[in-house]
């Protein structure tokens, strides 16, 4: 039995197969409409989420399966003090696969250790969010046609932004990848990622504070939100939250085929006037999120669909 804890759980070859499957699902949704008939997905969400929970549920429903679960710790027996280990042992009796989000880092690993069904890490605090990374990779590969030979700008909260950390770790496995890290000094990429991931893999990168400086060189601009829930201090959050705002004027500086991605939800960091720009693909990205989660559920449940 296999779980998904980190985006690196899949080798590059396995990832290619998963993304191929997601593309096939996108082209032939009817072929997969009953692939999970009779199967149940449990969504165990100990902290609020809109798109991650709904996209997992949509994925299972699109596959003909059904869903059950809870959407906050208050509505689960965690409020009564139940451990993650006990919750997952119980849920294993009710469902065939589970997607779990929990505010504590490493919580999904504890769940996987006690589970008799596959566990999908749907976000464990600021640690990992692998299905977002799979979504990002599918979006880039589908719209750019490749995952190599790319210059990727990562902008915003690079310190606490787990999607950024995971995306970097996933992309360094491909050839000719360059990063431009765009952040204020306070939200720089943690040194362990700069040293252990970028330097160790000889990945070229530069760090800039001004977004305008980076835009002309980028194939991909990955915007992130400054996340209030990651700050212990309200004052720091208020100071940082509107540091970057991508608007039409800044988009003028970018290549005509640069793509703008964002894991969403967006707050102020992308002006709504950018939404109509064909390079703004963050809502398409949300759609790819469903396809890749469908592919993931099929893969973890070991279900193959014949033509």
């Amino acid at each position: 039995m296999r779980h998904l804890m980190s985006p690196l759980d899949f080798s590059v070859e396995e990832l290619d197969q998963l993304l191929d499957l997601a593309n096939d699902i996108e082209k032939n949704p009817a072929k997969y409409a009953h692939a999970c008939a009779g199967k149940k997905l449990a969504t165990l969400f100990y902290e609020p989420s809109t798109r991650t929970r709904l996209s997992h549920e949509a994925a299972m429903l699109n596959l003909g399966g059904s869903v059950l679960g809870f959407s906050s710790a208050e509505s689960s027996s965690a409020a009564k003090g139940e451990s993650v280990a006990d919750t997952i042992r119980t849920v294993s009796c009710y469902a065939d696969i589970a997607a779990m989000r929990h505010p504590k880092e490493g919580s999904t690993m504890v769940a996987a250790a006690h589970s008799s069904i596959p566990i999908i890490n749907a976000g464990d605090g600021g640690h990992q969010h692998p299905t977002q990374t799979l979504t990002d990779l599918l979006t880039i590969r589908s719209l750019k046609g490749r995952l190599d030979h790319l210059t990727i700008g990562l902008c915003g909260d690079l310190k606490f932004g787990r999607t950024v950390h995971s995306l970097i770790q996933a992309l360094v496995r491909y050839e000719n990848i360059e990063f431009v890290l765009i952040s204020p000094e306070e939200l720089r990429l943690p040194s362990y990622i700069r040293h252990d991931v970028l330097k160790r893999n000889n990945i070229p990168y530069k760090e800039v504070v001004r977004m305008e400086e980076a835009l002309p060189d980028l194939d991909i601009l990955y915007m992130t939100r400054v996340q209030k829930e990651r700050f212990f201090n309200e004052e720091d959050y208020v100071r940082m939250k509107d540091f970057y705002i991508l608007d039409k004027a800044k988009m003028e500086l970018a290549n005509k085929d640069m793509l703008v991605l964002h894991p969403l939800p967006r707050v102020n960091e992308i002006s709504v006037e950018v939404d109509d720009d064909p390079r703004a693909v963050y809502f398409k990205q949300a759609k790819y999120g469903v396809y890749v989660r469908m592919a993931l559920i099929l893969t973890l449940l070991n279900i193959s669909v014949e033509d």
Partner: protein
Amino acid sequence: MVKNTLNIGRISEGFVLDHIQAGKSMDIYKYLRLDKLDCCVAIIKNARSNKMGKKDIIKIECPLEMIDLDILGFIDHNITINIIENETVVRKKALTLPKEIRNVIRCKNPRCITSIEQELDHVFILTDPEREEYRCKYCEEKYQRK
């Protein structure tokens, strides 16, 4: 004049941990959970040492399989471990960094699942032997030595 010496007798089977940095023996006593063992333990603090000036020594009389000493590699790999059988040193154990440390040190990351989950082992994995770096198995936070 009374000569200022302290003698601790030989042990028949067990370990002599020598060259412990002076003052650290109680930490090792705690890490090895020697308080939980029903055996004879002698702690010698501030013994004279030609090499170190002062050093601590711990003598533990117990069956050899009773204690896992691998953790000492993490605490201080300069410690010498003498293995005693029939009152003589039969060999010295070389210390290396353990690949995994379980329930000896605790993860200090307040966002880690170990901060709330009951009865969860605290496990650290050796992620960089050159830098002697350990990370929590769950949250991957680096363990910061004092």
